[in-house]
């Protein structure tokens, strides 16, 4: 019985990621401010209510119109405190929203009432995510239907998953164990059960889990097969001789568009160019690419993106 009680009496959620400690520090600072001001007001009100309670009905206290000094004081001081909190909160938000470069890529697709997660090495998981401890993990997420929100309280991360675009967040787990995964944006009937768990493991144990599962085809390999099956390679030849631009080594680079603007080739640009090719045509190529909307699912899009990402300068796909 005791573990339930201690767990039930817990006031602070588990701190299982690099940012958890910093967020909690800011949270406790805000709690301190709330307790201080509430206490101050409570004390003043009680003291005044008792000290100046009405003694007789025709008692008429002297008029006090106000004092500029006091008004300035309790405008400037709260403003100062508010700005201090703002700066601390914004700095922390800026630090925790930039994923480290060498982060492990996980693709997440939210759908009415389940989470589908894909590892680059091909493992597919439903409502569960196995990750190694002390390794940054970057999540690239989208939704197939309504807005959901990927929320792991123990890591203090939350990011909406919006249909029609990619959103991303990241975490680096610092403690092994199992942590709740919730959907935080109301998404319909089974919003409450659309969740699962994040399993953080020792690296060795994680490797064993990777190989132990059914040997699935790696994401880039699946992407390459799809790239061929949809006949993308007839135009996008790797040596650039086809009607479409070569995609080798293009991911992450900046492309010049026919309209003169430049765009960074990221997940969103690749996705948009597959579903709505005419939106942003690269210079020197005719706008002849047909749309693949309806022919490719969200999961297949992620496979194609993983494949294009893997096309490094030396020409062949790397797992």
């Amino acid at each position, binding site marked *: 019985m005791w573990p*339930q009680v201690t767990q*039930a*009496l*817990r*006031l602070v*959620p588990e701190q299982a990621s690099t940012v958890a400690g910093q*967020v909690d520090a800011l*949270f406790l600072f*805000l709690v301190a*401010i709330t307790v201080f*001001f*509430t206490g101050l007001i409570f004390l003043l*009100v009680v003291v*005044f209510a008792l000290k*100046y*309670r*009405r*003694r007789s009905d*025709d*008692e*008429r*206290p*002297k*008029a*006090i*119109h*106000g004092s500029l000094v*006091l*008004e300035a004081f*309790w*405008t400037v001081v*709260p*403003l100062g405190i*508010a700005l201090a909190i*703002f700066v601390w909160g*914004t700095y922390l*938000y800026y630090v925790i929203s930039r994923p480290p470069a060498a982060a492990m890529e996980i693709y997440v697709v939210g759908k009415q009432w389940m989470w589908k997660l894909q590892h680059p090495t091909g493992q597919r998981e439903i409502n569960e995510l196995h990750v190694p401890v002390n390794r940054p993990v970057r999540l690239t997420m989208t939704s197939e239907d*309504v*807005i959901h*929100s990927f*929320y792991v*309280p*123990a890591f203090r*991360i939350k*990011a*909406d998953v*919006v249909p*029609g675009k990619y*959103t991303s967040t990241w975490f680096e787990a610092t403690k092994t164990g199992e942590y*709740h995964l*919730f*959907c*935080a944006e*109301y998404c319909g*009937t*089974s*919003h*409450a*059960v659309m969740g699962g768990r994040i399993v953080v493991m020792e690296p060795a144990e994680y490797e064993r889990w990777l190989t132990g599962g059914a040997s699935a085809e790696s994401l880039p390999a699946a992407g390459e097969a799809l790239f061929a099956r949809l006949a993308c390679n007839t135009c996008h030849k790797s040596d650039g001789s086809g009607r479409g631009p070569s995609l080798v080594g293009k991911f992450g680079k900046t492309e010049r568009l026919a309209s003169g603007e430049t765009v960074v080739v990221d997940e969103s640009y690749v996705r948009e160019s597959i579903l*709505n090719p005419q939106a942003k045509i690269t210079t020197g190529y005719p706008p002849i690419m047909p749309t693949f909307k309806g022919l490719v699912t969200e999961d297949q899009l992620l496979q194609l993106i993983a494949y294009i990402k893997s096309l490094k300068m030396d020409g062949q796909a790397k797992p």
Partner: protein
Amino acid sequence: MSDAPHEPRQHYLNCDYSVRSWLLTTDHKRIGILYLVSISAFFVLGGVMAGLLRLELLTPHGDLVQAETYNKFFTMHGITMIFFFLIPSIPAVLGNFLVPIMIGARDLAFPKINLLSWYVYTLGAAFTVVAMVTGGVDTGWTFYTPYSSTYANTNVILTALGVFITGFSSILTGLNFVVTIHKMRAPGLTWFRLPLFIWAHYATALIMLLGTPVVAITILLVALERGLGIGIFDPAIGGDPVLFQHLFWFYSHPAVYIMILPSMGVMSELVACFSRKRVFGYAFVAGSSMAIAVLGFLVWGHHMFVSSQSMYAGIIFSLLSFLVAIPSAVKVFNWTATMYKGSISLQTPMLYAFGFVGLFTIGGLTGLFLATLAVDVHVHDTYFVVAHFHYIMVGGAIMGFLGGLHFWWPKITGRMYPDAWGRLAAVILFVGFNMTFFPQFVLGFLGMPRRYHVYPPEFQMLNVLSTAGAVILGLGYVLPALYLAWSIFKGKPAGDNPWGATGLEWHTPSPPPTFNFEQTPVVREEAYAYDSQLEGHRV
């Protein structure tokens, strides 16, 4: 105190008892009472929904109702409480009744439009109740797309039309107040002699005028998208669901100031009267109402920090959200300073004022957590948010409404309620409220998401505590309903000025005659001039 009237004096209540005279009245006082009846009915409806929600949450797994039903309950609780109780409550009941009298006018600028406002409210209410009875709606009161426009299969269009129509009731009330306060003040009643209740209602009316139309067109677009299948927020054809959130919150954040500003107006009246002192820093309290109305329109993005809104917009909205907190803090400090060296009597309205100051302070400060970017990422859409806005809505708006209702009850009905029962109810409400919503702060920080039909077992103990508090809170609300109704018939006559207050409404008989004043009063001194009250008669 006026002596016992030999034959009953004509006033706005006993001049005509026919139902027709009530349903076709253009008297702002009667329309206030029509609204009191309507919003009380919806408060009961919303309260029952809340009770069912708390019952369901007693246990981690959903064993009272199905998930779909639970979703409909929390949606109806939200819609009923916000659109049909909180937004109209003080402006449409106390505001309608008191604004003309407090400024020495015979009625609002457009009495017929005022009656139209009540009928539009009732029509919107009819739509919403029909939608609820024939299957309900399960999109949450926020109607987020694409769920509301494409994936939900409940009465979204019917409810959207109900909310759309009721929005115009709010617009018409706002329009009436703005024009009345500008154009129909009694001679001598300059802007800085106005009671702060009027300042608060002027600021509220501005928000009603400038914000409500935007939610009207947004809800209309969702209904169009759902009904005719045309894509406006539909991501499949390039639309953006986040655009709906922008347009929705552009109104819905200022709407929370529509709900709290009138209570702040009531607070200034209560603290001044029961401390028998001028409000400390009158100009600053009046100015902060206007500042809240203006800044309130610049901060809506703090509802969307994690919604794929750009980080830079998030930083702008976070900064502006901190600025909008300052006027509220100034008000609380000024109310506290008003009590310094006052002559404080702890009658029921003042107890509600104490409740307001305490709970609104906690509600306001927890808002800073949500305005802080890094913390909001963790607590957004959790029970921390639920606790925050209930501390503002129930701890602030409803405490203010009940305080105001008790304070002006003798003026509205001419009868006095039993003060002992009043104080008891106020204390029960304060205790029950804290027991219900304080545990939810902890639940939110622990990570329990909102709108959850089932939750992990480790959250159960706090939820049980919260449900227990909800029972006490529910009891607390029943008490005023009983003794106030009782006092209408059995309460002892209250006389014109039972509290010895200074407003113009206390210089006309209770209940007031149909045209409020025998002849238009002339105002010669500041508001809340308690110190000079005994020397000469004011008017």
